Every structure is written in C-alpha cells, then in structure tokens.
C-alpha cells in the first residue's frame, strides 16, 4: 500500500531539512577557499575557483594562534577527563556499594545541584575561583569542569547498578580490600560508561566557551573556542579568514562524529534525560 504523494512529501521534507542544515556550513566552506579579491567579487553560493587554496587556513591557523588553542584545549580536556573519571567512579562506588548514614543527604546534594543553572552562579563562583588564585590559569577551567560535573556521576551510578554485587562479595571473601575491588573489578567493568562520559564530556569541553572566556582572558591561555572568538575584532571584515578559522574548529567535530556516531547518540541520550 504505497501512496506516492505522501512518500514524495516525506522525502521532500527530509531533503529540505538536510539543505537547511548543510547549506549554512557549505557556504562557509566555500568562503574559506576563496582569495580576498575572489570573495569580494563572487556571491556566497558560488564555489571557490581553487579548492586547494589553503592560504586562509594558514593565516587563520598561524595569526589566530589556533595551534595554541588546540594545545590548551587538549591539555585541559585530558586533565579534566582523567579527574572526572577518577572522582566520578569513586563517588559512584561509594554511593552504590556502601550503606552509610548521610547517604540520602549526599544523593540529595548531587540531585539538587543539577537544578542550579551554572551560567548564573558564575557571578559568585568567580569570586571563589579568584580567591583561590586560579583566575588566568588552566586550573580554573579544569577544576570547574571536574567540580560541576554531576551528570557523569549519574551515568556511573546507573551503570554500576547493573554490575552484580556478588562479584564484590566474592572478592571480599577472598580477602581483597575495598580499594582492590574498586580498582580491579569495578573500574574495568565500568569501561563502557567511562567511554560514554569521555565522549559527551569531551565534546562539551571542546565546545565550552563561557568558562574559558570568563576565567582565562589571557591570550596565551586561549582555548579553541576563545581563539575563534578572538577573530571577531581584528578580522572583522576578513570573512574568508574567519570562515577558515570556523572550519578549523568544525572539522575535528565532523571526524569525531563520523567515527563514533553510535556512541555519541547513546551518550547524548543518557546525558540529556537525567
């Protein structure tokens, strides 16, 4: 029972949506390959005359100090992710595998914190980070990424609930310490949850703009988001260079998405419906 009209409508709408998503990105890609004169003379929808004109990319990469941006982002990303995983899995271990007084209070504290919109409390958080002397150091971003991450603790707790407690008990009987159980049994079995957290948090840190913008104004500490944002002033009219800078930021996301699609869908769903 095929109704050609409905089918046509369906595919037309899908193709239209794909165009709406891709066209804005495609024209920026076009612009990034155009020379200064060519950019002025051609319309936005005209493809570049030379697809191998990488000059804008070179200019964006060098004078936009994007290598430094990638380096800083990478450093902050790795340290924050390692910290999040250690802190998050240990907390989840305490919350799922121990019964202790005050456990409900701890749960409540973590739950209630998810309701506080981080963007607004920065007014007061800033004073604390300043008081700790961390403003304009990478540690400000690292400690905030680790300290405000409650979603990963949830993902770890939920996943840990599916690891049978009999494993812990058997190990205890064999004389293993609590830490050995965490280190040798729980942590390896949490690998899929860790992968999920690495992916969604990694993407989140790569894209984060607000925290580095606020806490690390020094140009030497620019991460990829703030490095790109800094194109706004000096390159105000040089759209072909800004376009190249934008593409430099987008390309890693495209690669990660194509490589890890399935993981990303699962991770995003797990992270958002908390």
């Amino acid at each position, binding site marked *: 029972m095929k109704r050609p009209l409905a089918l046509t409508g369906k595919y037309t709408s899908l193709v239209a949506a794909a165009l709406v998503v891709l066209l804005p990105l495609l024209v920026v890609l076009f612009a990034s390959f155009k020379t200064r004169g060519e950019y002025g003379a051609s319309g936005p929808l005209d493809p570049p005359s030379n697809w191998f004109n990488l000059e804008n990319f070179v200019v964006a990469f060098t004078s936009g100090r994007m290598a430094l941006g990638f380096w800083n982002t990478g450093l902050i990303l790795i340290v924050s992710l390692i910290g999040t995983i250690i802190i998050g899995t240990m907390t989840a271990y305490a919350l799922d595998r121990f019964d202790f007084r005050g456990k409900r209070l701890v749960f409540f504290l973590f739950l209630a914190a998810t309701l506080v919109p981080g963007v607004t*409390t920065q007014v007061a958080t800033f004073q604390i980070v300043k008081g700790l002397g961390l403003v304009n150091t990478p540690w400000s971003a690292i400690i905030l990424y680790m300290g405000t991450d409650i979603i990963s603790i949830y993902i770890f707790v939920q996943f840990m609930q599916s690891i049978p407690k009999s494993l812990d008990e058997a190990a205890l009987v064999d004389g293993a310490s609590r830490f050995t159980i965490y280190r040798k049994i729980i942590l390896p079995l949490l690998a899929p949850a860790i992968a999920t957290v690495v992916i969604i948090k990694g993407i989140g840190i790569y894209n984060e703009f607000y925290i580095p913008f606020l806490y690390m104004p020094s140009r030497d500490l620019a991460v990829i988001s703030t490095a*790109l944002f800094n194109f706004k002033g000096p390159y105000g009219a040089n759209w072909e260079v800004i376009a190249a800078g934008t593409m430099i930021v987008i390309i890693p996301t495209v690669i990660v998405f194509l490589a890890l699609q399935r993981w990303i869908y699962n991770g995003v769903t797990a992270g958002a419906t908390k």
Partner: protein
Amino acid sequence: MKLRSVNRLTPWLYSAAALILLITFTYVPVANMIGYSFTDWDGLSSERDLVGLDNYVKVFTDPRYWQVFLVSMYYFVASFAQIAIALYFATVLSFKTRFRNFFKGVLFFPYLLNGVAVGFVFLYLFQPGGTLDTVLGFFGIQDTPHWLGDPDIANISLASTSVWRFTGLTFVLFLGAIQSIPGELYEAAEIDGANRWQQFRFIIAPGIKRIISLSFILAISGSLSVFEIPFVMTNGANGTSTFVIQTVQTAFYFQRVGLASAMAVVLLVIVLVITWIQRRIVPDEDVTLS
C-alpha cells in the same frame, strides 16, 4: 554480613573529592550569591553595604533589567517550533526510510558543533547580501531586512539560529523514545488497518508523552538561560540582550556584583519553580537512584 562491618569512614573517603568540589563550586556560590544580592558590592573593594531589597526592586522595576525577560519569549516560542520539527522528523525516520542514517546524522549534527563556530556561520549567513539574501533572491524576494541589525527582526534571526543548533538533540531524544516502543504494536495496528496518522496518534504519541513534556520544561529554562548565540553574534546589541548576557555585563563590566547576584537569584528561583511544577505534572519514573 561482611558488607556492614566496613570502616564507617570508607564511603566518605571515596566521595570526599566530589563532595568538596560540589560544595565549593555549587553550594557556596549559591549561598554567597544570595548574600551579595542584598548588598551594593562591586566585587573588588573590601567594603560592602547592606541595601536591603533595593537590587530586587531594581530588577523588577527598571525596564533595562526586566525587558530581557521579553527577549526570552522569542526563544520560548522558537522552542515550540523546535519540538514540532523534531517530532515530525523523529516520526518520519522511525519508519523505514532510504538513507535513514544519513538524514539522522545530518539532522543531529549541528548540536555537536562549537557554539562560537555556529555563531560565525550564522553571522555570515545573515550578512546583508549574504547567503540568506541570495537564496531569497532566487525566489524573487528582494527587499530583505537587516537580519541582525533591525531590532524587530534580530531576535527572530537569533532564535532561529538556536532552533538550527538544538533541534538535533530534541530529535534524537524523540527518536530514541519512539524506537523503544515495541514493533509488534505497529504490526498489530497495520493488521487492524490503522493508517500512519492513526499509528502516530494512538501508538507513538502516548509512548513519548514523557519525553515531550520534559522537552517543554527544558524549553522554558533553556530560553531563560540563552547566552552563547546572541553573545557571539550581536553581543546583546539591537535589543537582543538576554538575561544571562545582562547578568554577566552587570557583574563583570559594570562591577555591580550585588545587582547581578539579585538577577541570578531571580533566575535561579524561576528555574527551581518550573522544575518543581514539572516534577508534579510528570512523575519521574526513571529515577532509580537512592
């Protein structure tokens, strides 16, 4: 039982780091913020004076401060469009479709992009004589407004950018919910002669009620805390300043931490109330913690 005989301190040791970070960077700031909101502190000097409710009075009476709430209305209305678009494509793609994964990926992909990059992409799109004007030109529309310069249009342009960026997330959440509906239901419905609309109306819609209502709540708090897109694209000019932009500027550019804290407290209270209402309307079956 052996599990009970552990040292009572052990669980606290495992959760100490997380708790210290949580308290230092969430609870202490919230408490401080409430404290600041009753003072005229500038964030720098060591002295601050209590001013009572002055800051709150200002937030609600000075049009410069409460008008930003009207801006969130644009984003709130836009999020209805976002939910509708997401629902349509999630439904369409839950049935057999050619290039299904391609379309799913394309629709979702903008959500993963860096916000600053999205801001630049749309600054370029909305330029006078830019992509949008050129495309509209093909359809014979010549007299286009200044998409970001005209205060009547700017918020609509920015809210549309926001729809472009976030529809993918809503869509994937809906699609996941639809696909968790057992396939036999559709088969049974087809045997009974139900058409696609009836399948949507009686199988899909009830099955994803919870995620849809969750999306509406997220839409409210999301439209109140819009920041990146207008900050990158217009820096709040032409009447596009949002509540968060206003708060940040008040605190960090104008050094009025007391006033900014009052604004932040107002936003926090609104979000808490909305979440509380949501918990009442939609009981959260999925909470498995505790």
